[in-house]
């Protein structure tokens, strides 16, 4: 294994002062949603951290996740973190193409066997290998081959995590998630459509900082970012408790910023960090912009009824079925009564 400089080395080489480093640690701590008392430990850990090799695979996806990540402005702390990883393969971002690109992937795999991270965005079609290929290799084959020597796999976005939109009903390509296929390696799901860029980088920097995988919930999501619902952290929550709801997008409640529950907000059942980390460099998030949460980081969010159906509504099925149930009730009731009357007659005759 080739020598990889520690993050401390890199920063020092760039002439970053200790104050600057402390500032960076404070920001990282905040990013990782850790308490401020953790800053010294983070500082210590970051100083020792080494650049991991990262291979990014894109399958049935829209590049929205990559966009999300790269749209975070240039020389930021996230950028710094990207400086501190070695992104050895990313077919959208890398300069190399064709065979050279594939060769880079193989080289990174060989050099870092057992230590590299595989990041995946997009779902994998199992219906027909021809549905999605890269360099003539089916997504499935490329994933299985690349993951073989990986330390861990990070599924970026809802498609890679849960099948996402390609996997939505009726799932024409037979799309599956990374976790559906990889059972012998740790898989971290970072769902969202797209995920918050800072969450992507935070997951990476956590790996970088502590050299181990974060604590995951039952859906394989890092608890630090997916531990609480949007609803729990939403600044509009007090309106929910007071029973003050916007009922249309332009009523008084909407103008006053009341709770969007009745407009179909999926905040109560959506685990993500949007309400605190927010988007576009902490500017806002959908609910702040007046739109209910779609629940994009939850499995099957595309198929959970309408986006504007409140969480507490249920699907009562078709009117025909209801009428059928009613008719059945009347029929059974009538039959029961007829049976009882016949039985009554018989009992009376016998008695």
């Amino acid at each position: 294994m080739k020598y990889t400089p520690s993050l401390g080395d890199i920063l020092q080489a760039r002439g970053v002062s200790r104050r600057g480093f402390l500032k960076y640690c404070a920001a990282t701590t905040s990013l990782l949603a850790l308490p401020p008392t953790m800053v010294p430990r983070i500082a210590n850990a970051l100083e020792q951290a080494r650049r991991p090799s990262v291979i990014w695979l894109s399958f049935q996806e829209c590049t929205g996740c990559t966009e999300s990540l790269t749209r975070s402005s240039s020389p930021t702390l996230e950028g710094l973190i990207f400086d501190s990883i070695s992104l050895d393969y990313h077919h959208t971002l890398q300069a190399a193409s064709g065979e050279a690109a594939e060769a880079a992937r193989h080289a990174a795999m060989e050099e870092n066997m057992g230590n590299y991270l595989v990041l995946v965005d997009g779902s994998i079609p199992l219906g027909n290998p021809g549905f999605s290929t890269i360099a003539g290799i089916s997504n499935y084959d490329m994933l299985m081959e690349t993951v073989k020597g990986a330390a861990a796999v990070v599924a970026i976005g809802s498609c890679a995590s849960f099948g996402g939109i390609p996997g939505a009903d009726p799932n024409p390509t037979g799309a599956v998630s990374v976790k559906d296929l990889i059972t012998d390696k740790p898989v971290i799901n970072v769902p969202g459509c797209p995920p918050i860029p800072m969450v992507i980088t935070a997951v990476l920097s956590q790996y970088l900082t502590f050299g181990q995988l974060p604590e995951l919930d039952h859906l394989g999501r890092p608890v630090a970012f997916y531990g609480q619902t949007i609803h729990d952290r939403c600044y509009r929550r007090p309106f929910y408790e007071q029973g003050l709801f916007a009922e249309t997008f332009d009523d008084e409640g909407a103008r006053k910023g009341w709770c969007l529950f009745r407009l179909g907000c999926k905040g109560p059942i959506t685990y993500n960090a949007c309400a605190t980390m927010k988007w576009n460099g902490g500017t806002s998030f959908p609910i702040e912009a007046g739109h209910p949460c779609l629940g994009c980081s939850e499995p099957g969010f595309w198929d959970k009824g309408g986006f504007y159906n409140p969480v507490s509504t249920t699907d009562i099925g078709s009117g025909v079925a209801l009428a059928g149930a009613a008719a059945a009730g009347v029929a059974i009731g009538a039959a029961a009564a007829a049976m009882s009357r016949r039985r009554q007659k018989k009992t009376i005759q016998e008695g």
Partner: protein
Amino acid sequence: MSTSEFDLESKRLSIKEPEIRYDTQGDLSDEERVQKAMAHFAKNFGTTAAIYLDSCIHCGMCADACHYYVATGDPKYTPIWKLEPFKQAYKREVSPFAFLYRLFGLKKKVTAEQLQEWQHLLYDSCTVCGRCSLICPMGIDIASLVAMARHGMFKAGLVPHELHAVAERAEVDGSPLGVTPQLFEERLEWMEDEHEVDINIDKEQADVLAVMSSIEIQKYPAAMAATAKILNAMGESWTFRTDGFEATNFGMMSGNVEWQKNTSMRIINAAIKVGAKMVLLPECGHAYMALRWMGANIYGKPLPFKVLHVSEYLADALNSGKLKVRKVDKSVTFHDPCQISRRGGATRAPRDILKHLAVDFRELPGGGDYNWCCGGGGGVVTILRADELRYKVFKLKMEQVEATEAETLLSSCSNCRQNFDDCQEHYDWKYTMESLLDLVADNLEEDEA
């Protein structure tokens, strides 16, 4: 329930007579009894009973309305519990889910032992007074269900002996107390002489057919004279008929539907025969229920005559001014017969009459429709083994009456009256119940004229 106690106070040392004693009629096997009971329960399982039996939520409030529960505190006297076998039979045989109940054995078949045990609850400890029907939050008319349950009990031969015997005499002799047409006629003639009043007997045509209760004929014969006096004073075309004079209906009380029908048809036929426009019922509570509210349904079509209780008739006569009475300077309280007031809807009549008599009327606590039953109705007064319980329950009534401190206690039901007389003797009580009819008849203004 069958806790045997030694009776060391009687001359013959033995164990006390068990509190619960079952009477049976006929030579039927247990299965046959159950079969009969089921058949005659089943006859009653129409929509009305089904709605009631399906609606009970087991809230237990009916217990608080029942004088048997209130007087004893024994939960088995909870009115709806008295219907348990009836309800069980309904659920198993006829209810919408009967099929499921039978398939999964969720409701067991009613057993002969159960029916025997319930004899005490359906007869000895229920006067069908309907007070529980008023407390039920579901509006279940529990009293009418007890009457229905008795139909099955009767056919199963599970009626208390005395009640059965009395009902049988009513069917055979036309009167539960041995009043034959000849005896009735004799006693009418006696009253005619005694009270110097013209009594019409067996007239061919009459607008009003007056009927009597055997209890009055035998025990309170003055009622016959009083009735005649009033009808004469009103100038009515009226008559008593020896072929239809018995107002009591022990068929109804014991639970024999055929006997009930025979008894009612005697009056109905007699009334039709004389072309009566009205049948005047005597001071008898259950007679009112039997003819006023059940008569037409037994007849199968609307009755071609009106049915009035004598108190209603008197109230109308006094209110319209056709009849005038003297002022009676007494304090009076009035015991409402359950079947006439609470169950019958004629609660106002006695109060109107008392107003015309200008008495110092003192309503019983909860008087009128929420009145405590005397404890003798529904045939209970005939059942000897129920005496102890009946006396116990009567205490509630005594407290109510005493609370008014009235001089005179009135009622308009001879069955209540005989129960009061019996309890009065038992407790050596100061109050003697008098008849409202007698009071009116004794104070008619025409007397003086």
